[in-house]
């Protein structure tokens, strides 16, 4: 069943994120995708997130489709104007991609092309509206399309530190949902209780909520997130658990797997973020019992 | 026989950790039983079941395979494969009648000279208590008490 159908049927979806290469060597991406075929529902291909120039998500998504794995690609407004965005979205549909996630594009301060000019021709909500409009057969200029795409669109909720910040995020999500988004991806879940509270609030969104599951690769990573991103809520206990583990890297896998198992009955799916350790995805799913 | 019994013990030591630990025991002048004879291998995972069985067949009273600590193997998981293999051979030794307790897997880091020495002492004592291997060739058993 396709990702779209599973969402509609309220079945649990398992997504995994895989980055396109910085360069043209796609062997790792293809190998990783093939390995996961059949075990996940779709692969999420980010575009040039973090401002790191890479092969575009559109091509990455097409590659995934070619491997027989459904693709969901990121779209955002930083690097392309409305012409390029619409053109790429139509292209995506024609090449078999049926799902998009409108993401918030990060600023360029950590980019590897700091001098690049950000575009921001459209806002995120604007982009969602454009996609809806394309689905209905009209482009932004109001011109009729010769054949309309049909795209499922999702959006993301950013990391939030407190309730107030969460409300802002939920408001933003609500707008995007009103504009046509049919699922949301949450920030990484490290604290289950907090996630449950979040889900209670997120119920009102009325669309499937898919939490991000982040693979913690090392103690240093856990500490880094805990320190630099208070919104992530990595507890001391979690850090202690990793520190005490005789095998710190597999401990991260275990944590990710357990988190997936724990959110199974709360959320409508998971999006697993392994950031370069895609070869660990099968182990995570094994732990999760998927 | 038992009182004078000096066991012969073969220790297969991986180059990166256990053998280095043995050298460390040397430079720290840690005394241990001379009964232990070391055979150097690149990785404890290189120790074939046949090597272990042959050691017993030739007359060893005890054998141990010494590798790196968990997660420290220079070759990723050679030490864990060695552990599993040792368990398998232990079962076979029970079948043969030699007894699984004459074979052990130990793990240590390169810096643990003291542990190397301690294990050599402990293993020697353990085997001394167990007595000679039941399969020391008959010719050997007939000869005078074997000092090491």
């Amino acid at each position, binding site marked *: 069943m396709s990702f779209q159908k599973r969402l509609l049927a309220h079945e649990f979806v398992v997504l995994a994120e895989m980055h396109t290469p910085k360069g043209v060597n796609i062997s790792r991406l293809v190998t990783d995708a093939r390995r996961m075929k059949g075990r996940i529902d779709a692969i999420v291909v980010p575009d040039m997130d973090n401002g790191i120039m890479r092969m575009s998500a559109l091509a990455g998504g097409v590659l995934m489709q070619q491997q027989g794995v459904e693709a969901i690609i990121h779209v955002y407004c930083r690097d392309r104007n409305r012409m390029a965005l619409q053109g790429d979205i139509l292209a995506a549909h024609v090449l078999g991609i049926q799902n998009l996630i409108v993401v918030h594009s990060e600023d360029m301060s950590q980019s590897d092309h700091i001098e690049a000019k950000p575009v921001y021709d459209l806002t995120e909500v604007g982009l969602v509206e454009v996609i809806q409009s394309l689905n209905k057969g009209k482009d932004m200029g109001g011109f009729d399309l010769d054949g309309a795409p049909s795209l499922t669109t999702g959006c993301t909720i950013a990391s939030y530190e407190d309730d107030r910040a969460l409300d802002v995020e939920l408001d933003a999500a609500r707008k995007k949902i009103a504009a046509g988004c049919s699922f949301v991806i949450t920030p990484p879940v490290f604290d289950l209780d907090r996630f449950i509270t979040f889900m209670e609030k997120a119920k009102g969104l009325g669309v499937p909520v898919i939490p991000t599951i982040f693979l913690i690769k090392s*103690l240093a*990573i856990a500490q880094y997130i805990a320190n630099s991103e208070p919104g992530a809520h990595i507890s001391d206990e979690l850090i202690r658990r990793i520190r005490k583990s005789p095998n710190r890297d597999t401990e991260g896998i275990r944590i990710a797997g357990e988190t997936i198992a724990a959110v199974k009955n709360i959320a409508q799916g998971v999006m697993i973020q392994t950031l*370069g350790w895609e070869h660990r995805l099968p182990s995570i799913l094994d732990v999760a019992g998927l | 026989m038992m009182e004078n019994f000096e066991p012969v013990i073969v220790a297969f030591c991986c*180059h990166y950790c256990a053998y280095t630990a043995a050298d460390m025991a040397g430079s720290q*002048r840690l005394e241990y039983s001379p009964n232990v*004879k070391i055979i150097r291998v*690149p990785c404890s995972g290189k120790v074939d079941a046949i090597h272990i069985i042959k050691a017993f067949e030739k007359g060893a009273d005890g054998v141990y395979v010494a590798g790196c600590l968990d997660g420290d193997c*220079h070759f990723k998981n050679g030490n864990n494969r060695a552990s599993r293999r040792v368990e398998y051979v232990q079962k076979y030794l029970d079948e043969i009648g030699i007894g699984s307790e004459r074979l052990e897997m130990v793990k240590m880091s390169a*810096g643990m000279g003291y542990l190397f020495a301690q294990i050599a002492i402990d293993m020697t004592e353990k085997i001394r208590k167990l007595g000679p291997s039941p399969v020391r060739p008959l010719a050997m058993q007939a000869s005078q008490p074997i000092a090491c």
Partner: protein
Amino acid sequence: MVEIQNMNGVQGHNKVLVIGGGLGGIRTALDLAEAEKDVILVDKAYAIGGLMTQLDRTFPTNNCDLCTLSPNLSESGRKQHIELLTMTSVKGVRGDKGNFTVSLETAPRYINLDKCTACGECHKHFPECVRFTPGLDHRAPTCMRYPQAIPQSFSVDLEKCSDINALIKVCPAGAISPDDIGRKFEIQCGSIVLSAGAALFDPSGLDYLGYSVEPDVVTNLEYERIMSASGPTMGQLVRPSNGKQPKKVAWIQCVGSRGLQKGAASYCSSACCMIALKEAIVTKERFQDDIETTIFYMDMRTFGKDYELYLERAKNKHGVRLIRSRPHSILRDDNQDGLRLSYTTDDTSEMKNEDFDMVVLSTGFKIADDVRELSLKMGLTLNPSGFAVTEEFSPVETSRPGIYVCGMMESPKDIPETMAQASAAACMAGKDLKVSLKDPDGDLPPERDVTDEALRIGVFICDCGENIGGVLDVLEIAEYSKSLPNVVVAEPQGHGCSRQSIEQIQKSIVENGLNRVVIGGCSPRTHEAKFQEAIRKAGLNKYLVEIANIRDQATWVHAHLPEKATRKAKDLMRMAVGAVAESHPLKDHSLPINKDVLVVGGGVTGMTTALRLADQGFKVYIAEKTNSLGGMAKNIHTTLSGSEVRPFVDNLIEQTKAHANIQVITRAIIVDHSGMPGMFKTGMQVGPQMFYRTIQHGVTILATGALANRPKQYLLGESEAVGTQLETDTLLADNPETVKSWDNVVMIQCVGSRIPENPNCSRICCQAAIKNALQIRKLNPETRIFVLYRDMRTYGFQEEYYLEARKQGVIFVRYSLDHLPQVQAVGKQVEVTFTDPILGRAITVTADRLCLSTGLIADEDSTEDLARIFKLPRTQDGFFLEDHVKLRPVDLPVPGFYVAGTAHSPKTIRESVTQAQAVASRAQLLLARDAINLGAAVARVDSTKCAACLICVRACPFDVPFINADGYSEIDPAKCHGCGLCASECPAKAIQLMQFEDDRIVAKLEQLFERMVA
């Protein structure tokens, strides 16, 4: 004298001149040579080696020095890039950096080095005119300077020779040349490293120590000679006065150091405490309760890495007695056998007397007059003690550009620091030089084809001085080995790794037509490569040698069971002979090297290393965990000598960022790592969004620093008045007004250090306390400062600041672990109560500021993570553990990895810079090569046996084997890591790991049990 002008070729300036052939000079020369740069090494002595060749053993491993040094020495003998000039002194230096002209003068040796075989005939017949003694020992030694001397030759003192013609005749090689007139000549070079070493303080002038009158009062170096197997007594510890073994030996510290005696230096000689402890431990190890050892000291200065543990070992394990006291005198009554030491201790004013059989004076180091002269001749600025003055943050750079110093020339220090500085000097001196590539295999003879030859095994057994020979009878082992099958030759070989022995082995291979070689000696881990090279030079494939580790695995660990050790040694020899019979000629595999460098950590150390390597044209990645460069040094404002740290750090950051060859990756967390030296791949998570990035590089340098310790003690973090020395340093810089307002300041040393939980000394805190004390006094000379200490460890020139602080009235009070100072908050102040050992009563000071000397600790979390990812060992307290604590202080045991700065152990900025430069030098050794040798230990598949079962394909941790088009498993030797997992799992026994073939392992087993059946 013959004048020779410019003996260099066209590229005359593309060379480094290294002056001094001691340990430091040798290291510098070797580093440069291995990085393919040309070196001229000059020494005024007739053999290189310097002071270290006279030591018996070195701390803290208590290894025999000769064993550790001699491989280095003979290395230097063989290097094509090194031109060695002995008996040569420097007469003058002209020109500037990059373009020096140096005039040299070589004294006549009267022996032709090309002909001399060091057979010793000349010395036997004319001992009076043949030089062989170190000259330092006022008692007659009876052997050559040391057995592994380079060059391997004698030297003649013509003036003492009565019958020159007779001397010429006794020489079988015809090497005596009385017409030798020496020569004067000039050479050109681009830079100069001065490593002239130090002399020892002469205690003759100190009457009350009785050195010049009492034969049983010796210096520490003389004691070393007595203990040395190659020394005058062949290693027998006896009293010079009567030849009997002493029962009580005392050491007196600080003779000639710390400004204590007439003519003594004002500085601390840094190494004598460890030397005395080592001598006492070695004595105890050899004689246990037969000899009692006592050390009289002022402050135990065991500030080096893990040195405090050594001190604990001396006290607790070996029972070395330590008395804090300066003995008043050493006297002997006429009818009394022993020497009477008079001394007082802190707890009593009463004079104590105690008799000893021998007294060892721990004499300090000083700069010899001729060296001082030379330095001045070279135009260097010297400090009052004659040491070369260098930049605070560039420790090996002298006042004259292009001239560098290392080792004792810079300041008194121990061997590891000398080694680090020597490498640093190599880095700095070589940085403007071009590499000069030479064919390394050029002079190798062709390899003999031994495949069809019958086995002819040669067995050579080292006595390694006392190390092996002291426990077992080497001759007996040799005789025994002769009886083994296929053994043609079996003989003892002294120090097998010495040049002389190597040559003999090579000769034996050729003369006896040997085709397999067994060495009975030390660990193949350290010496296999050396013997492989040796037999290769004798025309054999280098893999036809097997080493039986009869030292580390027999004599060292069964020293008290000589009979059993002998029997075990025989077993090991038999196993090796059996195994070598199964060895086959193998070919090495190699791969091109990736010359990029990954530096982990962007502090002063990381940046310095990166800059030095980037300057050499290597691409460097700096992976820094935080979001900016600078590290710990950003928090430090001044150094003990008053230099400003900030501008230095800012300048470093600026240079680093601007360098075209450096890429700085901040907020980088290393998460995975794979590969091998020359082709590593490291994965990291970068930036706030943590994208994953991999970097391919050839070497990895760890400069991850350390953490400022903040133990929850003495109200730290609770009372405003309490802070660390680091925080005080900041206050001094930012809020001088606050500092001025302080009336009473108390400093407590060793907070969180030298305690059971963290047994090591943090090294930097004593100088930090002195620095802050002096600064506070500068702002307000009225402030009363109490420093509560356990031992003041102001080593080297820091001692002068310590003396200054005392002079200024800073009060130093010793405390012990049994009587820790008590601290209580009183309003904004704190009350500090401590016991004055001299007054013997408690004193309470109400302090406006309590400065805690908390030192540095390893970043446990991060070093554990990195150690796991990179598979590196750490010390008990979490610092990275170097490959050899003495001789390879910045190399890590995993090839291709280096460590520098406080990730190695606590140290000052200056010391970190030294290590950073040293690492840059060491890394170049690897980077200079174009290919990495993967060795021959690779798995090989016999396709006729292969069942294509895929077990190897699945077992390989590196995914190397595959089933080829012919349907058999294939293993690419260039990718094989040589673990042998495939070989051990192959059910068809179709895979063999070269060098560790089943036949070879089973041969060992068979041989081990051979004796029992027979």
